């Protein structure tokens, strides 16, 4: 392979948008858990409630800090006053749960009847004394994980604009700093500050389970990079300070609105990097951040090699196999890039929405990975058509299809191995440490097959008559 040869250009297409995905209001399920003092109020219909109730599964029985403001006929025909109705419900929430923030999730219905949530929120906020964040995470405009993007973009506006003057206070508000300093004496903390290189403040965005936050923060610390804050933080009251000129970096591929908001409204500088998924992605992510701060990365190459070595038992199962992404959660490009690096080929990546600017570095890494691994670049299909995809899957016979639950069982019954895509959204997949978890998921159907190999139970539906 000659180094001068440019990577093969990626091929983008757009289909009909007739595909299955989760409604973006599902972000409530993980965000209410992440932001511990929040309450999410979804202003919608029974349809929205039914979806959440079923999609959240057993979480719904754990008295979640979430509820529906269910719109009735009177609300639709504007016989009832929206402001009064919302006030009544929010006061009830204040009384019963006393949250630090109420997040209103606008839905398709509030869009169509043009309920002015953004206009009502500040008024009500002043009246009841609880901050209200409005996010329009509806199925008319967005898919699945993009819901988080709309919520975080709205939260950007609530981040403090200036670091408080008193140093102690700053440490109070900064959760991550506290976390890193946990149990240490003041002098140690001061000494520790010097472990960091002097660089402009960096804020990361994207909701991650706490262990992942700690993990990525420490990973950057090894390079002398200090994470000044994280959007969102564990508590709403700990939202990071964001001043003009701060650097920001995303940890997930679906956060393009949040990125844009940070750049345009808060005049932050976005570090466009591949996402820290897989050891290759994590290394590229750290390297890019280092390069922006003119830091020479230390020990990353060895670290990556070491992780790959530890993954070998799983990678062995994947090498030479093919994977097809039907597309529903926007993690597809990063996951495909990682799996191609594992030695898989990938004929098609379906994806709900492709922001070529926000994902530029990831796309470049994908093209480069394909070239280095000597596999053809995948077709990237935006707004895919599930019916057409199924026909292509029958033709291509991929070894693994990453798809939603609506198609998983029917495909399995036809002898096609599937992995349920939603699991990648909920599992911990970021950073060096979690690379194994991604492969745990990806190889599970293949390992299951090794176990059942000799039974001859592959096709479990009668041959369909060809018309």
């Amino acid at each position, binding site marked *: 392979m000659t180094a001068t040869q440019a990577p093969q250009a990626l091929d983008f297409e757009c289909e009909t948008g007739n595909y299955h995905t989760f409604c973006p209001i599902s972000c409530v399920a993980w965000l209410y858990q992440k932001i511990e003092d929040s309450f999410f109020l979804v202003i919608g219909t029974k349809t929205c409630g039914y979806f959440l109730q079923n999609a959240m599964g057993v979480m719904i029985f754990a008295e979640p800090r979430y509820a529906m403001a269910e719109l009735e006929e009177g609300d639709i025909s504007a016989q009832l006053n929206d402001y009064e109705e919302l006030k009544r419900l929010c006061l009830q929430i204040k009384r019963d749960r006393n949250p630090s923030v109420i997040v209103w999730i606008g839905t398709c219905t509030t869009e169509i009847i043009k309920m002015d949530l953004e206009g009502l929120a500040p008024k009500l906020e002043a009246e009841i004394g609880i901050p209200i964040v409005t996010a329009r995470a509806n199925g*008319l405009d967005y898919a699945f994980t993009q819901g988080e993007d709309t919520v975080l973009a709205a939260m950007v506006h609530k981040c403090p604009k200036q670091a408080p003057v008193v140093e102690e206070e700053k440490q109070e508000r900064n959760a991550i700093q506290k976390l890193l300093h946990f149990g240490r004496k003041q002098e140690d903390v001061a000494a520790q500050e010097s472990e960091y290189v002097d660089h402009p403040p960096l804020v990361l965005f994207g909701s991650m389970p706490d262990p992942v936050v700690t993990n990525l923060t420490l990973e950057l610390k090894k390079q002398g990079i200090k994470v000044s804050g994280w959007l969102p933080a564990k508590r709403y009251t700990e939202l990071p300070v964001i001043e003009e000129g701060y650097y920001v970096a995303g940890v997930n591929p679906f956060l393009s609105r949040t990125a844009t908001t940070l750049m345009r409204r808060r005049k932050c500088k976005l570090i466009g990097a591949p996402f820290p998924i897989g050891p290759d992605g994590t290394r590229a992510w750290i390297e890019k951040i280092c390069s922006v701060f003119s830091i020479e990365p230390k020990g990353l190459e060895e670290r990556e090699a070491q992780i790959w070595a530890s993954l070998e038992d799983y990678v062995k199962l994947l090498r030479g196999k093919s994977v097809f992404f039907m597309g529903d959660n926007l993690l597809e490009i990063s996951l495909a890039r990682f799996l191609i690096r594992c030695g898989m080929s990938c004929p098609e990546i379906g994806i709900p929405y492709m922001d070529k600017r926000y994902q530029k570095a990831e796309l470049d890494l994908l093209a480069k990975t394909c070239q280095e691994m000597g596999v053809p670049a995948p077709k990237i299909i935006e707004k895919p058509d599930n019916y057409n995809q199924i026909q292509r899957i029958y033709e291509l016979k991929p070894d693994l299809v990453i798809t939603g639950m609506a198609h998983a069982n029917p495909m399995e019954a036809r002898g096609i191995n599937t992995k349920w895509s939603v699991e990648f959204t909920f599992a911990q997949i970021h950073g060096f440490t979690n690379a194994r978890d991604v492969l745990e998921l990806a190889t599970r159907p293949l390992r299951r097959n090794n176990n059942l190999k000799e039974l001859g139970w592959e096709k479990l539906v009668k041959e369909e008559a060809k018309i």
Partner: protein
Amino acid sequence: MKLAYWMYAGPAHIGTLRIASSFKNVHAIMHAPLGDDYFNVMRSMLERERDYTPVTASVVDRNVLARGSQEKVVDNIVRKDKEEKPDLIVLTPTCTSSILQEDLHNFVERAQMDSKGDVILADVNHYRANELQAADRTLDQIVQFYLEKARKKGEIGEGKTEKPSVNIIGISTLGFHNQHDGTELKRLMNDLGIEVNEIIPEGASVHNLKNLPRAWFNLVPYREIGLITARYLEQEFDMPYIDISPMGVVETARCLRKIQQVLNAQGAEVDYEEYINNQTLYVSQAAWFSRSIDCQNLTGKKAVVFGDNTHAAAMTKILAREMGIHVVLAGTYCKYDADWFKEQVSEYCDQILISEDNGEIGDAIARIEPSAIFGTQMERHVGKRLNIPCGVIAAPIHIQDFPIGYKPFLGYEGTNQIADLVYNSFTLGMEDHLLEIFGGHDTKEVIHKGISADSDLNWNKEAKAELNKVPGFVRGKVKRNTEKFARERGISEITLEVMYAAKESVGA
């Protein structure tokens, strides 16, 4: 606006989709935003369906809002007609289409011109009907559509079948144990020498609907789905219907006697008494169970029942009438059909609760502290929190309520299944009884600590020892009652005397 955390019955379109996807070769196209095809996930997961769920969305997005969805809907229908060649496409409105107020009727007419299969618009309004009502209506709508079509062509099946026959109406996908109930009913009819003419909608073909009038009568096993259809068939074709759910020994017998009467009125001359007697006494185990020592130990135990109309009413009757259990409260979330429920259960329970609010039923359970609950998954979780066992008898349900093994609720095998469910829920009556006699064997140190640690009241040594003799599953309740009693009277130390006084005061 209503603050809601949980709903018992889903939105209207779910009902329509359940009916459409129960039929063979019928495709539903939802007029809905991206993300509302969650039905497919549920069907694929819960029913473990091997086939693709025949439901697609005609996606409503920004473009559609700006330009209207006519073209898109029509294209999608025509496309699906070509791809899958369904017999029927049901255009399914959602909450979104209810407010867009587009002329979906017109789209259907347009699409019909270019489609080989039939196309109809499900006539349900999101704001006026829930899942169950919508399912009931959609089934009727499809049946009427095909019978009228057949009538115009003169294709309606002539006369009655030679032997007595029945249509079973209302078995559907995602219905609680519906698959098993369907099989059990077929067996039952077979035992009685009755031919099953059609089962709808599950597994039925729309082409066969024209044969419906050939049956001698219709059987509607569930209160929620199928009655409108049965009433239509009665009116148009003079077909009698039976709406007694054969759930439980007494109700099954009542259902069979009614069938006998209906058939004899048409000259069949059948007598099922011996069959009923034989099944009841020797084949089904439920009557014998009622008589056995096991069940004797359940006598007077308190239970709460909550669910849909069919299952909650049947369970209440079974518990009270067939097992001697004290049903303190029976409730339903089928608010729209509350009168029927009240009439069915009023003589078998102390209180009736009609509510769609899970908080209300949860509070009632906490207040009553029954020995067992029979409810939905929501009540099961309430039970978990309060340490009260719960048998699940109605939707909403989870994957574990779609068992692979044969578990009907209807017919004679159903009575056996229900007996098991009830008995297992009451934490094994005999065992409990023995524990009580021998003072319990649950004396682990940890439990002592647990009990004294979370209490602000002081239990003296004897009282604590006595409390530990109380069988595990009622211990919490005895402790709570005693402490409540002590608190009300300002007693700070709980002695044996206080315990007994508390016990006497509640009369238990």
